[in-house]
């Protein structure tokens, strides 16, 4: 490794940080002039926006984001025929008679609330439930892979545990890292604010039932993760120096070409599309979302950040910058290695919260199951809850998204299926364990109901802080440490995914441009509102599932072939553990 960073890189990063400080200083100064609370920050910024910025903003909105949204969040016209919520009996305000409402379908769903006794009432027009195409696509993909691979998510579970324990690790095989190390690297990218803030947002908007659907999506997602990571091992590139590069941009192109020469061009298109979306995703969910949500939590403990949120952004940008531009390896390595430990501390803390509130555990589970099938007062009814649950689960565990396949390609093995099985543990740890624990803590402490303001502002991490505070005034501090560390390690890992995709498209020489952009987005994340970032992040990360799931589905026959061969050898005892 080079002993010291290139001078040009240092100068550029210093210039950038200086520029960012100047820009954000100006923006916050304008906010201060208005002296409004946090909610007023956005209108204040808008007011001061110069004409050219507005034009750029409008151009992006009209020609880039909204066409994208129309396709990705296309709802199959479900908003016209799916009722937003199940309304129980209504009591007439005039005569007090209880009666059932009548639902009608027009251009948009309406509910007739007319009292049969006195005729008092009105017709309520509501926007129906939207089932975004991308959520549908992720679910279809996960179900398809679960069935096609014969419930690999359940039947390989015990084998997966033995694999990460290192029983089958042969140091002579091709690759860079062990099964456990590859899984830990992939998890450092997936375990982030999605597990802390995302879950709180899910419970806030979808009710307790969202947790049920998150767990379902997590269990099914294990199969998607298995399929994509097996493929990434099958079509990885091994350089003469022994280093590995792989991921969807490799297997989409090589795999489809391998399937049939006619599919070659399609594979290339999907690979480029994936790489572009992954770069976008790294700026969204891999960067700004982490910043905006971790800042939301840290603010609770350091109120002075309310006034100068950009300080947090700049500090984080410098911390990330010294690793990705300065090339300081030690910091990145330490942060990523602490992640598994921090997960244990986090889960232990939530278990403590459950123990303290043990009397409510039964009620919490009842609320989760009842809320999953017969939600009351939730926008969108059962479908609405499903959409929220699946969307937040996919955002957190990235199954079907294809990102983790980049990290898993580096595992040291000659058996692609083996790494796929290891990877399938990712959604289990991420969603079924960690997300569920966060969800239970939030439901049991009832913070979603007592802090409606945080729910409407999508400040999920702040909601989790409140849940922790109810048990012990010191608990939020554990969370602050966890949140900052998870955000940091997720950004480091995602900047690697993004950089791989950038280099794949534009060559390594221009990677510095990507890294500088990444730092800009970190600072941006600290000054933009949470809801805007949530939409942007979802859009970019979930969109990666389009090219990825399509390609993996087409290649599922090849995976199945390898899986049957591997499983046959495993079951017959032909394959012996390296270490018994």
């Amino acid at each position, binding site marked *: *490794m*080079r002993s010291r960073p290139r001078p040009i890189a240092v100068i550029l990063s210093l210039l950038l940080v200086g520029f960012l400080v100047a820009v954000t200083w100006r923006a916050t100064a304008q906010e201060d002039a208005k002296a409004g609370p946090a909610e007023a920050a956005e209108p204040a910024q808008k007011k001061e926006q110069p004409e050219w910025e507005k034009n750029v903003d409008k151009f992006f909105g009209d020609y880039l984001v909204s066409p994208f949204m129309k396709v990705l969040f296309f709802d199959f016209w479900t908003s016209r025929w799916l009722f937003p919520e199940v309304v129980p009996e209504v009591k007439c305000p005039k005569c007090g008679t209880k009666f059932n409402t009548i639902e009608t379908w027009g251009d948009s769903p309406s509910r007739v609330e007319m009292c049969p006794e006195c005729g008092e009432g009105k017709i309520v027009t509501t926007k129906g439930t939207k089932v975004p195409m991308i959520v549908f696509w992720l679910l279809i993909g996960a179900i398809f892979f679960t069935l096609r691979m014969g419930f690999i998510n359940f039947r390989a579970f015990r084998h997966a545990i033995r694999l990460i324990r290192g029983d089958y690790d042969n140091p002579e095989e091709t690759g*860079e*890292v*062990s099964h456990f*190390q*590859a899984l830990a*690297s992939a998890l450092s990218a997936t375990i982030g604010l999605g597990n802390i803030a995302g879950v709180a947002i899910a419970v806030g908007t979808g009710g307790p039932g969202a947790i049920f659907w998150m767990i379902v999506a997590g269990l099914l997602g294990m199969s998607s993760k298995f399929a994509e990571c097996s493929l990434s091992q099958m079509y990885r590139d091994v*350089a*003469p*120096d*022994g*280093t*590995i590069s792989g991921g969807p941009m490799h297997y989409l192109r090589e795999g489809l070409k391998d399937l049939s020469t006619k599919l070659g061009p399609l594979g290339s298109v999907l690979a480029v599309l994936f790489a572009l979306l992954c770069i976008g995703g790294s700026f969204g969910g891999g960067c700004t979302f982490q910043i905006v949500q971790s800042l939301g939590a840290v603010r609770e403990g350091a109120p002075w950040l309310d006034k100068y949120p950009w300080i947090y952004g700049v500090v984080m940008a410098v911390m990330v910058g010294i*690793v*990705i531009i300065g*090339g*300081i*390896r030690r910091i*990145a*390595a330490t942060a*990523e*290695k602490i992640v598994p430990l921090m997960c244990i501390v986090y889960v232990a803390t939530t278990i403590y919260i459950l123990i303290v509130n043990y009397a409510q555990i039964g009620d919490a589970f009842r609320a989760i199951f009842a809320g999953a099938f017969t939600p009351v007062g939730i926008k969108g009814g059962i479908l609405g809850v499903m959409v929220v649950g699946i969307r937040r689960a996919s955002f957190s565990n990235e199954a079907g998204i294809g990102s983790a396949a980049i*990290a898993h390609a*580096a595992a*040291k093995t000659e058996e692609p299926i083996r790494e796929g099985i290891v990877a399938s543990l990712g959604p289990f740890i991420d969603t079924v364990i960690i997300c569920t624990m966060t969800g239970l803590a939030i439901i049991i402490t009832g913070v979603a109901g007592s802090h409606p303001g945080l729910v409407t502002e999508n400040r999920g991490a702040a909601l989790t802080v409140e849940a922790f505070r109810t048990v012990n005034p010191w608990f939020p501090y554990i969370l602050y440490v966890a949140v900052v560390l998870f955000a940091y390690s997720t950004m*480091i*890992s995602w*900047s*690697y995914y993004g*950089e791989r995709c950038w280099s794949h498209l*534009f*060559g*390594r*020489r*221009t990677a510095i441009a990507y890294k500088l952009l990444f730092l800009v987005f970190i600072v941006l994340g600290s000054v933009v509102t949470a809801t805007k970032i949530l939409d942007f992040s979802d859009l970019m990360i979930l969109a990666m599932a389009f090219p990825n799931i399509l390609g993996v589905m087409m290649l599922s026959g090849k995976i199945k072939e390898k899986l049957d061969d591997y499983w046959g050898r495993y079951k017959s005892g032909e394959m012996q553990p390296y270490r018994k």
Partner: protein
Amino acid sequence: MNWLPRKTVVVPIDFSEDSFTAMDVAGEMVDEPSGLHVVHVLPVLEPQDPGVIWNQVDNESRSRHAADAMQKELAARGHEGVQVAIRFGNPGHEIAHYAEEVGAELIVASSHGRSGLSHLLIGSVAERIVRWAKCPVLVLKK
């Protein structure tokens, strides 16, 4: 420039077929095989690479692997007794630098002949060798 056989000729190899063709051309221009210096430039690994994070991959191991692979490949093509060097960093810069170090009289490089957008973005290593080298450079165009 005279056409007498040279003592030291540097050939950058990136393991592509084209670059091995340059070996054949260079072989004719040098008086002894030991005067042929083959150089392969490896990219600097990202600090976030899983192999770097877990301390499994370093420049020493990469250098060893690449040199082994190069010796094997060269032997298979009938080039025995040539010098092999592995460098890290920007290919154009490192190749020119290496040529200076060994006092090369000539660099023979192949050009991939990329054009259009990928030429603009990735550029040509051969072009950069020409820009930075302090000795004559022979670029073999496809």
